[in-house]
Every structure is written in C-alpha cells, then in structure tokens.
C-alpha cells in the first residue's frame, strides 16, 4: 500500500521534474545524443573497416605449382583435407599460359610459339577461411609429394595479418576509449544537472524521505533523459547510415562494400541505446548519493 503509493508518486514526479527542469533535461539529453553519435559513428566506421579487411583477407590465394609428374587428383584431395582450406581450383599448364598472355597485354607476342613447349607448370589455387592460417597451410602443402613450389605472397600476407591485428587492436582500444569518453560525458552531464538541484535533494531528505524515495525519481529521470538522448542518437545514426547506403549504391563506390547486416547493425544500435539509458539512470542515482547524507 505505502509502497504502491510511493511508486506512483515517483513516476508522477519524474514526469513533472522533466517538464519543470525543461532546459536542464533538454540540454542533458542533447549532450547524451552528441556523445552517442560520436561513439556510434565510430562503431559504424569500425564495423565497415573490419568487413573491408576481411574482404581483403579473403582474396589471398596460395599458388601451388606442381611438378609435371604430380598425382593431380590425389594432391587435390589431400589439400582439400587440410584444416582451414576453403576452396581449391586447378589450373592446367594451358590455362596458366593463357593467363600469362593476358597479363602481358599488348606485349603478348613475346610468348608466341611456346604453346607446344609450355614452360609454365600446372598449379592449384587454394583459398583459406582466413589469412592467419595461410602460412601454416602453405608449409603443409609444401611437404606433399608432387609439389614443386608454393607461393602465396610470402611477406605480403604476413604484413597483412599484422596490419589486421593492429587495426583490430587499435579499433578495440579506440572504441573502449570512446565508450569511456561517452560514459564520462553522460555521467558528468547528468551529475551537473543533479548538482543544480542539490538543495531539492537536501530538503527532501529533511522531510523524512528515505534515500530510495529521493533517489528513485532521479534514477528514472536519468533513464528517461538517457532514453530520449539515445533515441535521437540512434535515429540520426540509423537514418544517416541508411542515406549513406543509398548514396553509395548510386555512386557505386566500387571498392567499398558497406555493412548491411541487420543483425550486426541492430546489435550496435541496441548497445548504444542501452548505454544511454543505463548510464543516464546510473548517473542520476549515483550523483545524488553524496547529497543524501544529511
């Protein structure tokens, strides 16, 4: 009974308080929006960068040059059986020559007459599930019977792996810092808005209000402000990104393949939203703690 009355009271209070402290509430919500926009934009960039790197990685091929006497089918089966191997393509001597000719373009006549004494070896092109396993797979294939040479852009792949790792670490690090910054910005904002109302808290305590009776409206208010701020941020980000997708579609920015996976995007936006609401509420209820000790 008493509890229900208190609860009803708290809910009503939250609304009234936001209306009466309109400027503060709006300013706080706007600060949250801006913070989350920055964080969210970075999240989107990081998602896309991640996907781009993955795409680049997925284009790495291992070229397995075969001896002319190699047991082609057995080798193919053996390679396919290695862990991490995804796709294996056989390139015959003739195909190899044809490709070389094409790559030479206008100077292709250099190769005339080689058809009958084709010096190019047959090969397997092997794709792996990710770049990291390439060196290991290559070493395994090298030891197989009938394999002449294995080429996969040694040095290049290792560099790529290093870059990917660095970028991943850097992105995680930056995301962490940005999230911290956003949390700091949101908390300080709410704290400042609560500070402006410290007298209110003190008086409430003197009236015999229990800590939670004072705190709960601030918690709710922080959450409501966080909700508003996050909602606006997520909407702006969502529409902005959608617009960007449409634009990129039109200009057909050839190399960029933007992330459109609903689930990933949903998770990002959900996380932003939760961050805003949670931090808002937390900040609201934490900030008044020290004013409660009267």
């Amino acid at each position, binding site marked *: 009974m*008493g509890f229900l*009355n208190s609860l009803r009271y708290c809910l009503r209070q939250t609304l009234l308080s936001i209306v009466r402290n309109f400027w503060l509430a709006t300013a706080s919500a706007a600060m949250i929006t801006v913070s989350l926009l920055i964080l969210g934009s970075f999240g989107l960039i990081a998602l896309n960068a991640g996907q781009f790197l993955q795409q680049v990685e997925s284009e790495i091929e291992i070229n397995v040059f075969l001896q002319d006497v190699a047991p082609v089918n057995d080798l193919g089966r053996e390679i396919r059986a290695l862990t991490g191997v995804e796709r294996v393509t056989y390139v015959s001597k003739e195909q190899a020559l044809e490709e070389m000719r094409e790559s030479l373009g206008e100077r292709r006549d250099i190769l005339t007459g080689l058809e009958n004494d084709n010096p190019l070896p047959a090969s397997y092109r092997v794709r792996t599930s990710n770049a990291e396993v390439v060196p290991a797979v290559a070493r395994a294939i090298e030891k197989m019977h009938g394999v002449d040479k294995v080429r996969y852009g040694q040095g290049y792949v290792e560099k790529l792996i290093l870059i990917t790792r660095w970028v991943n670490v850097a992105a995680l690090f930056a995301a962490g810092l940005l999230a911290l910054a956003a949390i700091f910005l949101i908390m300080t904002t709410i704290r400042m808005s609560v500070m402006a109302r410290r007298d209110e808290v003190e008086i*409430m305590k*003197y009236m*015999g*209000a*229990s800590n939670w009776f004072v705190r709960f409206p601030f918690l709710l208010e922080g959450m409501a402000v966080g909700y508003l701020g996050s909602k606006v941020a997520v909407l702006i980000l969502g529409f902005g990104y959608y617009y960007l997708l449409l634009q990129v579609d039109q200009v057909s920015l050839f190399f960029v393949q933007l992330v459109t996976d609903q689930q990933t995007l949903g998770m990002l936006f959900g996380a932003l939203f939760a961050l805003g609401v949670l931090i808002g509420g937390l900040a609201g209820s934490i900030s008044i703690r020290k004013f409660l000790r009267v």
Partner: protein
Amino acid sequence: MIQFYNVTKLYPNGAKAINDLSLRIKQGDFAFLVGPSGAGKSTIAKLIFREEKPTAGQIFFNGRNALRFRGREVVAMRRKIGMVFQDFRLLSQKTAYENVAFALEVTGVSRWEVRKRVPEVLRQVGLEDKMDRFPAQLSGGEQQRVCVARAIVKNPVLILADEPTGNLDPETSRELMELFLEINQSGTTIVIATHAWDIVNELKKRVIALESGRIVRDEEQGSYGYGVS
C-alpha cells in the same frame, strides 16, 4: 521527549554556537526559545533535527540516544518532527500544495488521505486560494505559512518552529500561535524559536532564554525578558 546532556556545538570554522548546554523538553511541552541574534536558537533546533551533530554531549529523543541513530532511524525520527526552517527551504519546483503534500507522501500515505489533508492544512494557515502557486509567486509571509503547513500536515509528535512569524503581521502571527496552541492541546510537543516578544509575553508559556550558547533563564510561564515591556 528531548534531553540534552552537556551538549557543545563547535562549527567547523571554530564558532562555538552551543556551550555545554543541558535541557529537557517533556512530551506535551510548549516552549519558547528566545535570545539575541546568534545566541544559538537555530543551532538547538538543528541539533534536535539531526541537521547538525554535537561536538560533545548526548542528545536523547524519546528516551533513545539520537546520536546513535543510523539511516532508517534518522528518517523515521524526521518523519515524526514537523520543522519550520528559518530559511523556509521550500522546494522551488513544487507548488505550495505539492510542497505540503510532499511531507505526507514521503511517509507513504494514501493519495486519498493526501487530497483530503493538504487543503485542510493550507486553509488553516490561510492559503486556501494560493495552493497552486510556486514559492516564487508567493509573498514572504505566505511562503512562511506554507512552511508551517508543511510542518503540521503530518501530525508530528514534535513541532520545531524556527522563527515562524518573522515575516508575518501581528494578526496573522497571533492566529498562527493559536493554531500551535490548538495542536499542542492534542498532545504535540511544540518548541518555537522566536523574537516575537509580544506573543511570548502574552502566552505565558515556558521560556528558555539563550545567550552565547548557554541557557541563562528557563521559566515555566515566563516572559521574553531582555528589558522589553
């Protein structure tokens, strides 16, 4: 109801507001705290209300050591005390009605009870037509009466009124005092810090006179003293 045993209050800046003071206020008492400006009247009220803690000495509330009260007990005690602050302390974002209602709502009283009791009390202090004003929209005396209403609305066992008539004309002051007397009749203990010598002299109630943090006079049926007629 309230006992002070050799209480001393030294404010952090070194000001000694209360100096080794002992005092006993019984259930149902009606006492005036008088004394020159800065004598320590408000400090005594603050000590009882646990707004300040004494530097030395003991304070008992309803037979229990109030200095040992923790969180919940302090809250419970404050709900039993109706305090009129010298500086009003109204919630500026709440209307007169809401300010008074708040004192009830914190105790978890039903909405129906609040709706009945608050206008009743506001009528008693003569503010029935100004319930929906925010404190900034009220005159000084009207704000003060909202404070009084807020103190009495919860039917406290003790009313601590710190200068409740400082901004009121003599007639309204007298009406307010009659209200306090009436409440006192029903058993509520009342302690009023005041400079209104005319009222003190007229009511002939207990007078506790302070000077520089010490009790210099404590008379039942006393007068204001200090050479005012």
